[in-house]
């Protein structure tokens, strides 16, 4: 583990600029897998928030990586419960988190959303899922105060966790700010899969207007000061792409791309980089990926064939992924190493490639840990550019 924090960042930035670094960078994507790895539970974290730091550091003691995608729990059941929401809850194993579909908006409410998105979302729609926000002013005040204090606690833990990963493990966290697409706000938190599928056919103009109306909120959430002229090249802004895999290229071009391109243009113009989790399949949206400025984005390949994607978009964006989780779970160690070698041999020449699994690790059983340790060590030693 002798590679320094800065060496690891340099390794990643070099490959993102399509140049060959000293070694193929390795990315870890430990979601709630880290809790299982540490034999911890969500209940223990809720009792003692500092356990989150202990658990999310645990895999890094044994498993080499040059960076980790995120750190800590993103979707927090306790925060949800604080406002009376059941959107996120612990699974029976006590270690992973489940998400209940979140679709509190009716199709007849687009006009209200478009007219005043903040008023509609927070003063009307929110109370349908946050059951503790329907009481008196005093009651709502206490619930929101408790929720804000929970966010403050979570923020302090996240900051400390990043510092410990940096200082004790030399591991940078790749995702800094979030570029959350306006259409994914509608999909993830307002209309859900069924609702948006119908709206794409029956309420096209209203959906489009709603996405445009939500742009300001997604822009504010990204957090770039409009008067600024630069943002750091590292860490990257991150997008978890949710709805695009369900869209045809035509729908993607009309509904998703315009506000998203406007959003990420601000990152590019200020010298920043973008990491996109390409959830599902993106094979039919390679034109969009090739339309992004060269060396600006990193795409984590999930459902697509990485060898095909390398040919299609690999000259323009950096690709991360390639190591199948199911092979890491069920394969023999040598089979995993042989596959990792094939991925490195085909994807790494010329840079523009980061080795990682094809999915974020969620549950302890997602991979055989010995296989993961073996392939990461193998790539770290084998993936040397000469």
């Amino acid at each position: 583990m002798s590679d320094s924090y800065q060496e690891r960042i340099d390794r990643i930035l070099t490959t993102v600029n399509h140049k060959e670094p000293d070694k193929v960078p390795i990315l870890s994507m430990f979601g709630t897998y880290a809790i299982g790895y540490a034999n911890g539970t969500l209940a223990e974290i809720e009792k003692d928030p500092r356990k989150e730091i202990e658990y999310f550091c645990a895999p890094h003691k044994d498993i080499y990586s040059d960076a980790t995608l995120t750190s800590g729990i993103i979707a927090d059941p306790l925060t949800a419960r604080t406002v009376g929401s059941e959107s996120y809850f612990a699974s029976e194993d006590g270690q992973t988190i489940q998400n209940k579909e979140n679709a509190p908006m009716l199709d007849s409410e687009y006009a209200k959303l478009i007219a005043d998105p903040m008023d509609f979302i927070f003063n009307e729609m929110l109370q349908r899922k946050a059951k503790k926000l329907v009481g008196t002013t005093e009651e709502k005040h206490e619930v929101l105060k408790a929720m804000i204090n929970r966010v403050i606690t979570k923020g302090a833990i996240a900051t400390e966790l990043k510092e410990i990963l940096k200082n004790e493990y030399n591991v940078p966290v790749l995702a800094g700010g979030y570029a959350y697409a306006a259409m994914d706000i509608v999909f993830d938190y307002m209309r859900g899969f069924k609702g948006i599928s119908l709206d794409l056919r029956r309420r096209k103009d209203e959906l489009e207007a709603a996405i445009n109306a939500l742009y300001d909120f997604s822009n504010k959430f990204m957090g770039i000061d409009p008067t600024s002229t630069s943002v750091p090249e590292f860490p990257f802004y991150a997008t978890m792409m949710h709805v695009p895999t369900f869209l045809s290229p035509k729908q993607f071009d009309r509904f998703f791309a315009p506000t998203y391109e406007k959003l990420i243009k601000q990152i590019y113009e200020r010298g920043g980089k973008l990491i996109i989790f390409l959830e599902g399949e993106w094979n039919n949206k390679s034109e969009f990926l090739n339309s992004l400025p060269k060396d600006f984005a990193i795409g984590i390949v999930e459902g697509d064939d990485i060898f095909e994607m390398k040919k299609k978009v690999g000259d323009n964006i950096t690709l991360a992924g390639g190591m199948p989780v199911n092979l890491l779970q069920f394969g023999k160690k040598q089979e995993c190493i042989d596959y990792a070698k094939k991925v490195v041999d085909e994807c790494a020449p010329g840079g523009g490639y980061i080795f990682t699994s094809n999915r974020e690790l969620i549950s302890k059983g997602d991979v055989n840990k010995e296989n993961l340790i073996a392939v990461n060590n193998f790539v770290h030693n084998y993936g040397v550019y000469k």
Partner: protein
Amino acid sequence: MEDKTVLEILDELKETELQFLPNDEAREGFMTIVKFMLLAI
């Protein structure tokens, strides 16, 4: 106390709970994160 909306209460809490942040811009940024988390849960 008159009946207040969630947004009005959040505005008040921005002033009372987030004084540890250095300036109004930082408080506004933090409150945007709070709002996003409220929407997300």
